[in-house]
C-alpha cells in the first residue's frame, strides 16, 4: 500500500458530506478506514477509479447513517421535525405580515416611490430564505449529533407539501408552476442551516480534541 497515490487526497466534498452524518466518536475510524482503502485503490487501479469508489461509499454510507441516525432516536428526531415545521409556519409568515403592515402605514410613500416598493417585494424572497435558514439552525441546534437527519426530514416533509400544492396548482393555473419552483429554496435553506450548525459543532469538537 505504498505509492505516490498517498499524496492524493479523497474528494473533499465527499469527505465533508460524510462528516455531516458521522457520529463524532466514529469519525476518526471511518475517515481512517476510507483513506486507507482509497490510497490502496488509487495505487492499484488509478485515482479515477478510487475517486469513483469513494463517492459510491459516500452515497451508501450517508444513506445508512441517515437511517440508523433516525432509528437511534426516532422520538426526539420526530419532535424536532414537528417543532421545526411549526416554527417554519410561524417564522415564514412574519415577513409578509411585516410588509403588509408597513405598506398600510406608509401607503402614500410607496405610491410615490413605486420602484422602491418593487425592490422591497423582491427582497422579501431573500428574507424568506433567511427565515428558513434560521429554522434549519434552530432544529439542528435542538438535536445534537443528528442535525442532518432532523433538517433533511423536515425538508422532505416541506418538499412533499410543496409537491402536492404544485399538483393542485398545475390543474388550475399551469403557469403558476414556474413561480412555485422558487418555494423549493426554503427546504434547501433549512438543510443548509443544519449543515452550518453541524460543521461548526464538528469544528469545535475537533479543536477541543487537539487542544
Amino acid at each position, binding site marked *: *500500500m*505504498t505509492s505516490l497515490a*498517498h499524496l492524493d487526497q479523497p474528494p473533499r466534498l465527499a469527505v465533508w458530506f*460524510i462528516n455531516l*452524518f*458521522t*457520529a463524532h466518536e*466514529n469519525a*476518526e*475510524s*471511518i*475517515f*481512517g*478506514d*476510507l*483513506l*486507507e*482503502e482509497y*490510497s490502496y485503490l488509487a495505487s492499484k487501479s488509478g485515482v479515477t477509479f478510487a475517486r469513483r469508489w469513494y463517492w*459510491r*461509499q459516500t452515497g*451508501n*454510507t*450517508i*444513506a*445508512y*447513517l441517515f*437511517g*440508523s441516525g433516525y432509528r437511534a432516536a426516532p422520538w426526539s428526531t420526530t419532535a424536532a421535525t414537528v417543532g421545526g415545521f411549526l416554527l417554519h409556519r410561524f417564522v415564514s409568515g412574519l415577513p409578509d405580515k411585516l410588509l403588509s403592515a408597513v405598506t398600510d402605514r406608509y401607503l402614500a410613500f410607496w405610491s410615490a416611490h413605486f420602484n422602491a416598493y418593487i425592490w422591497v417585494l423582491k427582497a422579501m424572497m431573500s428574507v424568506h430564505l433567511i427565515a428558513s435558514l434560521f429554522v434549519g439552525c434552530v432544529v439542528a441546534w435542538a438535536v445534537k449529533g443528528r442535525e442532518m437527519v432532523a433538517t433533511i426530514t423536515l425538508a422532505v416533509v416541506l418538499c412533499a407539501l410543496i409537491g402536492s400544492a404544485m399538483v393542485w396548482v398545475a390543474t388550475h393555473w399551469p403557469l403558476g408552476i414556474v413561480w412555485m419552483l422558487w418555494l423549493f429554496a426554503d427546504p434547501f435553506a433549512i438543510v443548509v442551516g443544519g449543515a452550518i450548525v453541524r460543521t461548526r459543532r464538528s469544528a469545535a469538537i475537533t479543536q477541543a480534541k487537539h487542544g
Partner: protein
Amino acid sequence: MPARDYLGEFEHIVVLALMRLADRAYGVTVRQEIEFRTKREVSIGAIYATLDRLEAKGYVKSRLGDPTPERGGRSKRFFHVTAKGVAAVTRTQRAFQSMSEGLDLGFVRS
C-alpha cells in the same frame, strides 16, 4: 417463554466476520471480508452502524490501535466478539438450523 435476542441478518454476518478475522478485525478488513464472502458491496457506514448497535447490546467490544501514516495519522478501531456475542451467534445459528431442518431448500451439493 424467556426473552431471547436473535441477531439480524447483517448483524449475524458482521459478527461472523469478526470471528473469522480474530485480532485483525477493524473497519477495512471487516468490510472486505464481507464483500469477499457474500459478493455484495458493503459501505463502511453500514459496518460502523451495525458494530455500534452490537457494541450497545454488549455483543462486541472495541479498542483503538495506534495511529498509522497510511490513514492520515488516524487510529484503527479493532473489534472483538464477547462471550455474550458468541452466545447470540450460536442461538441464531441454532434457530436457523431448527427452522430449516427437514426442508428441501434445493441446495446444490458439490
